[in-house]
């Protein structure tokens, strides 16, 4: 599992479960293995001890000769079954048994010995592990043992099976965990993607349901109901806005029409004519405010038309060129630094309006002789559009509220302006998933808009 997958909580949970189950299964199977091994060892010892008891019985009843006879017979009968015998007299001479010599024992443990004997089977030298007990019978030494090969093979197989069991369990757990976390991560990703689309204004989008009626479906269902209501309300607001626009522009249009037709009949130097022209100019301002409000509403509602690639640097250069003569007339130094292209996915006209609003504000408030600078910086993931001036700026406390509609500073009350310029800037930045920052330019105002690039 790679690092990013571990960032998923389900993957972490699955990994935790995997560790837990593997530890548990290992402990269980290994205990079974050890217990089996011990039981088998005990059984071996018991068989040997029983055999020794029976041989002692024979010795006590019939003496050494009887013992030798019994041993000879056993070697003949059982030799192939893996029993090992050796009887030596006090001088070390072999009296009976199927071992050719006293075995070389590395580590004696009380009366118990473990050693290997070699035997020739099908022309090959094969070593057999043997466990044996040693008994002294009036100076004679008797060794009774058994071949452990079969048992060792069995234990080996058991060990392999145990290890495979653990490995398979771990693999199965890992697979299940991976599948589970992938499934959950997939659903969460689906929800996240849907949310992103909704945040960017596509209110008709809904969270995906898979009809499994699980917790995810219940949650998504609840969120969808919530979205239905939000969409309904937004649609109602938008419809209200549209009909307000329509209902306001109709009368405005008629007022303008009447004024124009009356103005037509009045001589140009008449006092009435200038009053009517002033009224027309006011109508223009009302119209602009209305247009700006509608544009803000539209930007907040998602921008409508599909976004396209827009080069902020080119936009900045062109708009700077548009404002340059105006700035020069007012004695303001307007500079642009936007050499490298900075492509963002967006709404060309709204971004252009964002730029013009910032430039207009700067040019409006900076006194003659002042400076306005527009910069576009393109980084790997973000493009930054900065408009800075050395005008009066905005006091720290007022910066946040300036982004709300119709907010203006008291000192600017006498100047023309709708108080909507920065609200539109904020709405456009939000629409483009950007970040808007108003800061002190020491002196003046510095507005920085950061957008994700394509």
């Amino acid at each position, binding site marked *: 599992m790679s690092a990013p997958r571990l960032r998923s909580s389900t993957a972490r949970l699955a990994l935790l479960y995997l560790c837990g189950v593997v530890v548990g299964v290992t402990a269980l199977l290994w205990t079974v293995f050890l217990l089996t091994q011990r039981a088998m060892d005990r059984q071996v010892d018991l068989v040997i001890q029983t055999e020794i008891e029976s041989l002692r019985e024979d010795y006590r009843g019939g003496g050494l000769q009887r013992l030798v006879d019994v041993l000879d017979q056993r070697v003949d009968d059982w030799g192939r079954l893996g029993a090992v015998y050796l009887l030596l007299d006090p001088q070390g001479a072999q009296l009976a048994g199927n071992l050719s010599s006293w075995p070389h024992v590395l580590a004696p443990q009380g009366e118990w010995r473990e050693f290997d004997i070699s035997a020739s089977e099908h022309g090959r030298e094969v070593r057999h592990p043997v466990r044996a007990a040693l008994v002294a019978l009036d100076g004679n030494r008797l060794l009774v043992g058994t071949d452990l090969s079969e048992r060792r093979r069995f234990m080996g197989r058991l060990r392999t099976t145990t290890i495979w069991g653990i490995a398979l369990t771990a693999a199965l757990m890992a697979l299940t965990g991976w599948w589970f976390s992938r499934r959950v991560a997939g659903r969460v990703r689906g929800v996240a993607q849907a949310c992103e689309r909704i945040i960017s204004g596509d209110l008709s989008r809904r969270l995906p349901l898979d009809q499994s009626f699980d917790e995810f479906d219940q949650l998504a269902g609840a969120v969808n109901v919530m979205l239905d209501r939000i969409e309904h309300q937004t649609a109602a607001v938008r419809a209200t806005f549209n009909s307000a626009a*329509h209902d306001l522009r109709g009368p405005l249009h008629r007022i303008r029409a009447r004024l124009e037709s009356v103005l037509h009949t009045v001589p140009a130097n008449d006092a009435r004519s200038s009053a009517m022209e002033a009224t027309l100019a006011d109508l223009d301002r009302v119209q602009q405010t209305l*247009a700006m409000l509608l544009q803000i509403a539209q930007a907040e509602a998602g921008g409508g038309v599909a976004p396209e690639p827009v080069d902020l640097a080119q936009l900045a250069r062109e708009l700077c060129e*548009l404002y340059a003569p105006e700035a020069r007339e007012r004695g303001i130094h307007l500079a642009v630094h936007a050499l490298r292209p900075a492509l963002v996915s967006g709404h060309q006209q709204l971004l252009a309006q964002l730029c013009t609003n910032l430039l207009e504000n700067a040019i409006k408030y900076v006194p003659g002789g002042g400076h306005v600078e527009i910069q576009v910086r393109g980084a790997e993931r973000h493009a930054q559009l900065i408009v800075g001036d050395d005008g009066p700026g905005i006091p720290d406390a007022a910066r946040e509220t300036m982004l709300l509609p119709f907010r203006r500073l008291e000192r600017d009350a006498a100047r023309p302006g709708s108080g909507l310029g920065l609200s539109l800037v904020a709405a456009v930045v939000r629409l483009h998933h950007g970040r808007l920052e108003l800061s002190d330019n020491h002196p003046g105002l510095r507005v920085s808009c950061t957008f994700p690039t394509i």
Partner: protein
Amino acid sequence: MQILLVEDDVEAARHVGSGLQEAGYEVQHCADGAAGLAAAQAARFDLLIVDRMLPHVDGLALIGALRQQGVPTPVLVLSALGTVDDRVEGLRAGGDDYLVKPFALAELLARVEALLRRASGDVHHVGVLRVADLELNVLARRVTRGGREIALTAKEFQLLEYLMRRVGQVVTRTMLLESVWNLHFDPQTNLIDVHISRLRQAIDRGFEVPLLHTIRGSGYVIREPGAAP
């Protein structure tokens, strides 16, 4: 020239209609979409002026229906909405130009003239444009007046080219903003005046006959000397 005006606001329609008639056009008016569509299908017009929001058949649906029937008549869309989207939708539906209410009559007349001229092919597509002794070479990007070279910025050149291609035709500020700067909203400051006065300085200063004229209340025009205003 025959113009069909489809507009449900009767008073606004009367105003626009009389303005158009005064400018020498013949105007037929329909107050709803269905009647407008029927009229547009029944007779051949040189231009349609269609309000976006109409009773019965929506303005955009009307244009769409006509375009589907292969009617190529230029259409000027009028709208009370005026957002960027609304404009895009209007043009996508088959409109040729778009005007937001309330508009000045002069703006409407300028756009009507521009559309009619464009439809009749009366926009100069030649590489060298001449008005009196002013000459603009589009390919060489050179401007001379009376043989004297005039240095212009790229945008001034574009502005002059736009005006010279429409000799004698009044061009409004918003038309220039839209065509030369590709801005489909009104900046609050009147920027175009400043650009025009700089252009005028460049081409008319020091010459006896001015070619670039400001038409009060409507826009600008480049005219042959002696041509009727």
